[in-house]
């Protein structure tokens, strides 16, 4: 039985502070790079979508099928499946946000899919947006 649990309720309206996934150091202090608040959440959203099931040790339920769906035939069904997958994944694993829309655009010229996700951070009205590229590699 996993002993981890979400404690988002406690953190509503608090600041979020996470390590920058690039692991670049601060040129002045030499410390790890840090991302804060909405940028921390943005990074978390990207991380979750780009993690495949089984990638995290002992936590098969963390991640999404999105990377696998990239190799499906690009048609309205697969677009819908990918969209649902993103929404499901974020509603399961990112309790700090509520997704309002997911837009997908096939960019076959560079063998990739453009993803744009709009969401609200819980307790805030401003709509946040994260865009990234899913490459078929």
């Amino acid at each position, binding site marked *: *039985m*996993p*002993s*981890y*649990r*979400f*404690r*988002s309720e406690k*953190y509503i309206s*608090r*600041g*979020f*502070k*996470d*390590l*920058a*996934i690039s692991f670049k150091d601060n040129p002045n202090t030499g410390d790890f790079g*840090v991302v804060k608040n909405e940028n*921390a959440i943005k*990074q*978390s*959203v990207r*991380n*979750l979508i780009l*993690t495949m099931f089984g990638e*995290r*040790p*002992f*936590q098969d339920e*963390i991640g999404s099928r999105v990377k696998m769906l990239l190799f499906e035939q690009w048609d309205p069904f697969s677009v819908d499946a990918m969209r649902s997958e993103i929404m499901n994944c974020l509603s399961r*694993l*990112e*309790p*700090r946000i509520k997704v309002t829309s997911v837009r997908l655009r096939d960019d076959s010229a560079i063998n990739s899919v453009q993803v744009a996700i709009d969401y609200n951070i819980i307790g805030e009205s401003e709509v946040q947006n994260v865009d990234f590229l899913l490459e078929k590699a």
Partner: protein
Amino acid sequence: MSAIPSQLTSLDFFEIKESIKSYLRTRKEFTDYDFEGSSASYLIDILAYNTYYTAFNANMALNEAFLETSTVRDNIVRIAKQLNYTPRSIKAPRACVKLIAQTSVGLNGTTFPEYATLRKGDVFVADNDFDSYTFALTQDIQVPVDSATGRATFDNVLVYQGNLLNYNFTVDYTKKQEYIIPDENVDTGLLTVDISPTAQSSETDTYSPAKNVTNADSTSRIYYLEETDDMRYRIIFGDGSIGRKLIDGEYIRTTYVSTDGVEANGAKGFDFIGNIVDSDQRTISPNSITLTTKDAAQDGEDRETALSVKFRAPRAYATQNRAVTENDFEHIVSEIYPQAASVTAFGGEKLTPPVYGKVYVAIRPKTGNKLNETTKNKIKKDLAKYSVASIEPVIIDPTSFYVIPKSYVYYNGNDTNLTGSQLGTKILRN
């Protein structure tokens, strides 16, 4: 608040992860470790996994270091080695056959050949309910030919199930050498080790297996056996003080039987596939050979299991290769006669009237109820090597008690149309 992780003995991934999170809660640098998508969470996963891996490895390694808790056979055998215990190898079933070969008139045209030789090697094929098996003869047998009839009779030929194989080594002290027989199904009881001065030399010296260092000196032609990785056996020679040390360039010839063990028990109906030659070196045709099976294949045993090694090694160490107490006799008999299902030993002084100077050993074999006299004598002879000089071991048959239950069955006659005797028959059948 202390920042020291509290779950130091945990072997659960999630407990370790929670412990790291608990530590982070005492710091204010990062706050997102509770969200699965955060980079901190990914890092914590790696840390927890690494800790889990190390903890598991340490636990496993330490468990494997003790006889009581080890589970991997190679490790069990290695620990047993420290107690001078060599696990029993697989044992080839043996069978007894009689061969009569009709020779033809010799090259001189008037008399039959002087003798006939049954060559060692794979000589018979026989089958049981499961499969067909090869049987091997470990030594050449030479018998005189009856000058009147021309018949050569090979009586009581003992053959062992398996293939007779060879493996040779050249002693080379310029490198670190290990003499490991490359076969896991070797019956060590049938292993022969011959040493020649060179590979080309026909002069051989047969070495015998030794179990301890007593009576061994610098010229003793002995070798020690120990099980090594993957159930293979390693041959170890003396160092010049305890047993003769081999000289650089000497040639080691090992001959062994690679057997199927217990699976081949019960094989009978032997067919000859070997080679018999007469004194004129002419091969006798298979049509001129008649074959009688005297004893079907029996006494084959599987190799000693890891569980058995764990049980026996400390007890073998306790006996110190000496049959002194009743328990020593019981243990040593079960070692020298592995077909024993149970062994009980008691001193003659416990009998009425007392018989001093004797130890009685009752053996119940795995098959049948009693041992035959030949086996009893063999066990007695083997046991004499271990027992105290003035004590005579006596092998006796155990007393078997057969319990015949008499059952009274009550039944409701309204629930069945069967009669009492019909019901009785059904109950007996089930």
